[in-house]
């Protein structure tokens, strides 16, 4: 009897050991890849930013020197860097409210209880999100053409004079925002839809019977109920705005008058056009600090409201 139990115990101890072995065996390939191709480069980015790694060092590593904060100092003195930072902040400042409002509107429309054939509209509104960014950026470049573009044609029907969307430094940023809004609102809409479905219909109904109008109900019933989701979507959109690259690359090449150079676009040119990898790494690290700051604010707010 006791011998029997002992065999069972040793069998289960062996089972434990083999389970632990299997656990490591199954997770270590992925962990190795993550360390090698994600963690290591991210840390190396910081180290690289303190060197003068450039095309000469690329040819012969012996030319590499440690330069301390020189890259950061040079960035702070570089007007184009500040232009990129300002542009990115403008994208955040105008883009986030615009895209959040657009997504919420779409979600409320699709969530409406009077809507027929809901799945059809939901897929149609989501479709731009899965399209290839470069391809649709090319499409929008022609849609926004000053003379032959459909956008200016539609505006002309309302008596609005043609706008040089991609050639005027004041119109280029809104032009890219319209494209980014069109491309991404479907994603946020799906997140909003899930949140809206948790808002009790009776609450909205009661407010309606009390004579509250559409906007009053939005402000006092719907928005408070989905506030954590509004926050989540805002933060996701901020992070997205910090990562704009292909849009200016394809549509404007950073122009006109550098009005659409974003931080990531600037990093790409520093690193892979001019081969100033040290300086480019410094840009990457500053970008990381920005995104980290935004994420910490997200986590704090989410914790406070119990969103996630």
């Amino acid at each position, binding site marked *: 009897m006791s011998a029997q139990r002992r065999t069972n115990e040793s069998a289960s101890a062996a089972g434990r050991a083999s*389970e632990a072995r299997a656990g490591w065996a199954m*997770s270590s390939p992925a962990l190795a890849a993550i360390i090698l191709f994600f963690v290591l480069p991210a840390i190396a980015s910081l180290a690289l930013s303190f060197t003068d790694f450039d095309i000469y060092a690329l040819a012969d590593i012996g030319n590499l020197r440690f330069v301390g904060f020189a890259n950061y100092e040079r960035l702070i003195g570089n007007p184009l860097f500040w232009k990129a930072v300002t542009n990115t902040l403008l994208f955040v400042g105008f883009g986030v409210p615009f895209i959040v409002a657009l997504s919420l509107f779409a979600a409320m429309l699709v969530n409406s209880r009077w809507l027929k054939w809901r799945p059809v509209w939901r897929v149609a509104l989501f479709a731009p999100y899965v399209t*290839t960014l470069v391809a*649709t950026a090319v*499409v929008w470049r022609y*849609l926004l053409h000053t003379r032959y573009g459909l956008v200016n*044609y539609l505006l002309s029907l309302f008596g609005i004079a043609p706008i040089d969307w991609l050639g005027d430094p004041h119109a280029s940023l809104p032009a890219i925002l319209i494209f980014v809004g069109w491309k991404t609102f479907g994603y946020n809409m799906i997140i909003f839809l899930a949140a809206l479905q948790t808002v009790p219909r009776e609450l909205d109904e009661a407010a309606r019977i009390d004579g509250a109008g559409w906007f009053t109900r939005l402000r006092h019933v719907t928005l408070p109920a989905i506030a954590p989701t509004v926050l989540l979507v805002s933060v996701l959109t901020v992070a997205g705005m910090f990562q704009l690259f292909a849009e200016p690359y394809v549509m404007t090449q950073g122009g006109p008058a550098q009005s659409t150079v974003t931080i990531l676009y600037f990093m790409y040119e520093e690193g892979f056009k001019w081969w100033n990898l040290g300086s480019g790494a410094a840009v990457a690290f500053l970008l990381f600090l920005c995104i980290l700051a935004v994420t910490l604010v997200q986590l704090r707010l989410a914790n406070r409201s119990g969103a996630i």
Partner: protein
Amino acid sequence: MNIRRWTVTLLAAFVALLTIAPLLWMLSVSFMARGEASQFPPPLLPSDPGLDNYRMLFGTFGIGRFLLNSLLISTLATALALLFTIPAGYAFAKLRFKGRDATFRLLVAALVVPGQIGMLPLFLELKAMGLVNSYAGALVPWLAGIFGIFLVRQYCLSIPDEMLEAARIDGASEAQILRRIVLPILTPIIVTLALFVFLGSWNDFMWPLIILADQDLYTLPVALAAMSRQHVQDNELMMAGAVVTTLPVLILFLALQRFYLSGLLTGSVKG
């Protein structure tokens, strides 16, 4: 009530039409003759629809090569991502081993670090490994998919422990349990993850732009961006290129949208 029903539905139809109009226009212009779209007012439909633009793309511009590159890279990226993330996600959910929870917490924290941060050092690392300007170099970021591990782990948590325990008592090895019991249960999330990685790698632009220097290796987005810089005037040709680039993923999404949308919610709301 009925009027309200129709107003809301009509409004939704209008917004939906406005949303897919750029895609419909892209398709329509791709069948137009050269220079036809450059008129005012812009024509909506081709007067004499033809496949000349597509013939030129596949003939003169050799877009077939880029299409094959994209197909190859996306398929391999998907296969490799599944191979790496599914066992890891399962292990983090169901197998007890030392350091598991601490490691997983670190991974979740790393989820907020965007991949672009390490792009320059990764480029240098791959250069040292001789992988710059190769398919392998383009595939590398898809091996390190923390999000995929997270997705699989979430799904695995719902598998009852008794089921795995019973298999162990029957003498099944851990690898057999993963293959015969866990994988069949995971089918929906595997489809979702495969779809995410395939679409993600197909649509990816910045990394292939950096790592692929040789034109023969270009993926569709990189080739299209290069072409659009050289052929700004060829509106109709570029639209055909955009169709070739984006239609495969659009069709794939439409066919499997259920898996895509459910995975999206697991990833963003619960994450």
